C-alpha cells in the first residue's frame, strides 16, 4: 500500500523499469547478505491512532498550569505571546535548513541578524553568534575559547562553587579532552563570590566565569570588581547571564565582560521539559576573539545589484572548511529558538523588557517575603527568580506533603550542596500568581 508521506511508493515498478532493473533489492546488492535482517518493530499506524495514543501518554504529565509550581533552577515558566509561536511555526522558517543558499534564505538570515543585534544590545557586546545549544554548552565553549586564546599555556578556568551544577558538569565534560582545569571559588556570607578566595585562585587562569543572577538567585554585586581582578591577572572575563534581567541590570559588556553567555530561550520558547533551548554567545569586537569564537555569524553584505543582503560570514573558522582545526564542532545550532527569542524581545521593546525585569523582581520579593514566614532565608541580597530557602525538616518530606496538596515545591539543593542543609530553591517569574504563593505558604505552615 502506498504511504502518505512517500509519493513514489505507488510508482516503484515504473521507475525501476526506467532505471533498467527489476527489483528494489537490486539497489541493495552491495550490502552484505549476512547483515540484512527483518526488524522487530511494530507495524505502522494511522495518524488518528497515533494522535490518540500520544494524547493518552501525555495525559500522564501534569503541567505547571495544573498545579502551582515553584521550580526554577535554570528553567522558568514564562508566558510566550501567542503571535511569537504563530510566527515561528510559519513553515518557511520551520522547515528550512541552514541558509547555505542566501539568495532564497534572506528571511531566516535577516531574522538571525536581528537576533544577533538584539542580544548585542542586551549584553553590551557587539559580536553575537546565531546560537549555541544552551547556556551550559555556551559556557563550556567559552572556557575552551579562553584556553585557546592563551594558546594552551594557561588551562585553568575559574568558576564559583555556586555555579549551576548542570552547567558545571557540561563544562567538565567539554574540558576533559583539552585538559581544562576547573577551579572553584568559595561563596561568602552573602551567597556571592568570595573576592579574597578569587584573588588566590585567579593566578594563571585562562578565564574567570561568574553568573548573574547566581545559582542561589542572587545578584553578584561585585561583578565589575571581579572583572578587574580577572583582567589584572591576564585572564578573560566570562559572564553568564539570564537575559530577562537585562532591562534593569547593566549590560555585562559595560561591566567589563569579554565574553557573555546565557540562555536565549527564556524569551519566546516554552519550557518543553528542558529543550530545545538556545545558548547566547557574545564577544568583544576584537578579531583575536572573533576568530576563536564558536558558531555561526550572520552579516550584512550586498548583492550583485548593490542591494543590502544577509549572509553567513566568517566561515573560515568552521568545521566544514577547517575540519580538525575548526574553533568548535557546532554545526546545527538552535536557529528557530533564537528567532522566537528575537520576536519576543522585539515585541517587548525597551519598556517591556524593563517591566518584565521589574515584575519578576517584585514577584520574587513577594515570594521571598512570604517564605521567610515559614523558613530561613540563608542569604540576604537581591533575588531574581530563585530564592534559596532552608528548612529544618528534611525537604523531601515537605515536598511530599506539598505534592499531596497539588503544589509542586522548589528544587532540592542538598544533593549538590550538602553544606547548605535542607535547602531548596523556590522560584517566581512574571507568570506567578498571588493565589499560588498564598496557597504555598498556607500549605508550608501546615507541614514545616
Amino acid at each position, binding site marked *: 500500500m502506498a504511504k502518505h508521506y512517500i509519493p513514489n511508493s505507488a510508482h516503484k515498478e515504473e521507475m525501476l523499469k526506467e532505471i533498467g532493473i527489476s527489483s528494489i533489492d537490486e539497489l541493495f546488492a552491495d550490502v552484505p547478505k549476512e547483515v540484512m535482517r527483518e526488524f522487530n518493530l511494530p507495524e505502522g499506524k494511522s495518524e488518528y491512532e497515533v494522535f490518540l495514543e500520544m494524547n493518552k501518554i501525555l495525559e500522564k504529565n501534569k503541567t505547571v498550569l495544573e*498545579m502551582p509550581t515553584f521550580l526554577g533552577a535554570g528553567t522558568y515558566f514564562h508566558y510566550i505571546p501567542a503571535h511569537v509561536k504563530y510566527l515561528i511555526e510559519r513553515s518557511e522558517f520551520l522547515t528550512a535548513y541552514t541558509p547555505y543558499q542566501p539568495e532564497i534564505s534572506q528571511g531566516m538570515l535577516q531574522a538571525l541578524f536581528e537576533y544577533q543585534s538584539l542580544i548585542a544590545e542586551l549584553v553590551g557586546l557587539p559580536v553575537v553568534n546565531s546560537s549555541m545549544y544552551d547556556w551550559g554548552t555556551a559556557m563550556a565553549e567559552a572556557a575552551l575559547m579562553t584556553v585557546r586564546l592563551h594558546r594552551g599555556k594557561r588551562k585553568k578556568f575559574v568558576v564559583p562553587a555556586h555555579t549551576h551544577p548542570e552547567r558545571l558538569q557540561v563544562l567538565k565534560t567539554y574540558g*576533559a579532552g583539552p585538559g581544562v582545569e576547573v577551579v572553584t571559588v568559595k561563596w561568602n556570607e552573602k551567597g556571592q563570590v568570595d573576592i579574597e578566595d578569587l584573588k588566590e585562585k585567579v593566578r594563571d587562569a585562562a578565564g574567570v566565569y561568574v553568573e548573574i543572577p547566581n545559582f542561589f538567585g542572587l545578584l553578584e554585586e561585585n561583578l565589575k570588581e571581579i572583572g578587574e581582578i580577572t583582567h589584572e591577572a591576564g585572564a578573560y572575563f566570562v559572564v553568564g547571564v539570564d537575559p530577562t534581567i537585562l532591562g534593569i541590570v547593566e549590560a555585562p559588556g559595560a561591566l567589563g565582560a569579554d565574553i557573555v553567555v546565557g540562555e536565549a530561550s527564556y524569551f519566546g520558547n516554552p519550557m*518543553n521539559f528542558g529543550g530545545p533551548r538556545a545558548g547566547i554567545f557574545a564577544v568583544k569586537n576584537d578579531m583575536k576573539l572573533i576568530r576563536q569564537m564558536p558558531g555561526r555569524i550572520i552579516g550584512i553584505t550586498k548583492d550583485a545589484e548593490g542591494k543590502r543582503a544577509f549572509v553567513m560570514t566568517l566561515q573560515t573558522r568552521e*568545521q566544514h572548511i577547517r575540519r580538525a582545526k575548526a574553533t568548535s564542532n557546532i*554545526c546545527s*545550532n538552535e536557529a528557530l529558538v533564537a528567532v522566537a527569542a528575537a520576536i519576543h524581545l522585539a515585541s517587548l521593546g525597551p519598556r517591556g523588557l524593563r517591566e518584565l525585569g521589574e515584575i519578576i523582581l517584585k514577584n520574587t520579593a513577594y515570594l521571598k517575603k512570604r517564605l521567610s514566614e515559614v523558613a530561613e532565608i540563608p542569604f540576604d541580597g537581591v533575588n531574581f527568580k530563585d530564592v534559596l530557602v532552608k528548612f529544618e525538616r528534611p525537604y523531601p518530606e515537605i515536598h511530599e506533603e506539598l505534592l499531596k496538596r497539588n503544589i509542586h515545591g522548589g528544587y532540592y539543593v542538598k544533593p549538590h550542596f550538602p553544606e547548605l542543609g535542607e535547602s531548596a530553591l523556590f522560584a517566581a517569574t512574571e507568570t506567578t500568581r498571588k493565589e499560588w504563593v498564598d496557597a504555598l505558604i498556607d500549605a508550608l505552615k501546615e507541614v514545616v
Partner: protein
Amino acid sequence: MYRQAKWDEPLIFELSRPGRVGYTLPKPIEDINVEIPEKLKRKTPLELPELSEPEVVKHYTRLSEMNYGVDSGIYPLGSCTMKYNPKINEEIAAHPKVAFIHPYQDERTIQGALQIMWELEQWLKEITGMDRFTLQPAAGANGEFTGVMIIRAYHLDRGETQRNEILVPDSAHGTNPASAAMAGFKVIEIPSNENGTVDLEALENAVSERTAGLMLTNPNTLGIFEDEILEIAKIVHKAGGLLYYDGANLNGILGRVRPGDMGFDIVHLNLHKTFSTPHGGGGPGAGPVGVKDFLKDYLPVPLVAYDEENDRYYLDYNVPKSIGKVKELFGNFAVLVRALVYLKIMGKDGLKEVSDVAVLNANYLTRKLKGTRGYELPHKELRKHEVVFSAEPMKRETGVRTLDVAKRLLDFGLHAPTIYFPLIVSEALMIEPTETVSKEELDAYVEALKKISEEAYTNPEVVKSAPHNTAVRRVDDVLASKRPIITWKMYKELKEKGEIDY
C-alpha cells in the same frame, strides 16, 4: 516561472517608532520596591525596537515569504536529508502537556514525558542494533562529541592511554574531525579508493596501538555503501579501536541493515534528518547516541529507565563511568516527541519503505541525469540515498562553475544540492532527493539541470549571473567576511559615516 517574494523589508530596528509596544505584561503580585544595587543598575541605554503587535507580525511574515523551506519545494541537500516534516509531529509537539512541564518536576508528574523518551529509545535500539541510548545530545555534532568522549573514556578506563588517534575517511563530514579534535584526539585521514570507499590497505597501514577508533558514515557521503564494512570492522577491532557510526546517512539503509550488525560499536542519529523533525533554519536538532552493551556505563547522565514491576519510568543517574553531561538536562525533548510520532505512524513497514524509495529516487535521478553534457559521475553508479556528480567538465569547457549551477537552480524554484562536498570530488554537486519527493519533482529537477547545462554551453552568462528570480541577487560573501557587519549598530554607524552604500 518561479518568483520569490522580494520585499525591501527594513530591519526591525528601522521600523521602530517610540512609544509603541507589542505585548502587555501582567501586573506584579504586590508593588514591593526592590532596589538593584547601584553598581549593577542599568545605565547604558537599551536601544530595542518599539513596535506594536501587528507590525511585528507583518515584519516576520514578510521575512518568512523570503525564505525557502521543505514545504516550499524540493530541498535535495546531500547528507542533510531534508524530507517532508509531517504536520501531526508539530501538532503533538505543541501540546500543552509537552510545552508546560518543568524538567525538575517530580517523576510521578512527568510519567508521560519519560515514557516518550523510553519508547523512543526502544525504537532507536532496534533500528540501529545498539543496546542503550542517550537522548541528551542537541544535534548531530553534539552526538559525535558524546560518542568520541565515550571512546576516550573506554580506552582510559582500560588503561590504554596511548590511544590518542581517531581515523576518519577523506570523504567524512567536517564535523567528524572537528568532534574528534575537540575531545583531544589527533585526527588521521584515510584516503578513499577508486570506488569511493575506504581504502583497506591504507586503513591497515593507519591502524596501530594508538588507534582509538574510526568514524564512518555508511552509506558514505558519496551515497555509496561501504561494501567492505565487515572487513573494515575487523581491521579496526583487531587493532583495539572502536567503530563509530555517523548516522547522517541512515536514511539510505533504514529498515534494512543495522549499524550494530555491521560491527559498529557507537552510533549517533540525526532525528531531525532521518526521523522527519523540522530543521528550523539550522536547528533545533537532536542527536541521540547509542552504544553496544560494553559501553553503556560511559553514557551521559541521566538515562531513562523503566521499572516494570511498578510500571514506573524514572531518571537513572547510576551510570558508573559516565562521561558526565554534554548538554543541560535531558536533550531537545520537543524534538524527541516529533520523532516518536513519526516512528509510530511509519512502523516497520513504513521505515523500510523510506529507504526503498529514498534509494530508488536517488538512483532514478542518477540514471536520468547521467550522460548530460558537463556533468560526470565519478565512482561507481549504484548509489544509496544520495549521489555526487562533478561539474568539472562544465567548468573546463564553459567556465560555468558548480556554484553557478546551484544559483541557477534557485531561479527555477528548486533548492540547490550540497556543493563542493565531499572534498574528494571536484566541482561536486551532492544531490539527496529523499523519499518524500514525487517522480514529477525528480523529473523537473533533472530537466532543470539539463537546461542549465544547455545554457552553460550556449549562453553561459545567464548561469553565471544567476539567480535572477530570488529575493536578492547573487550575494557577495567575500565582502561580508572582509568587512564584517554583524549587528544593526555597526551597520547604522558605517552607513551614517557614508562608509558603505548598501
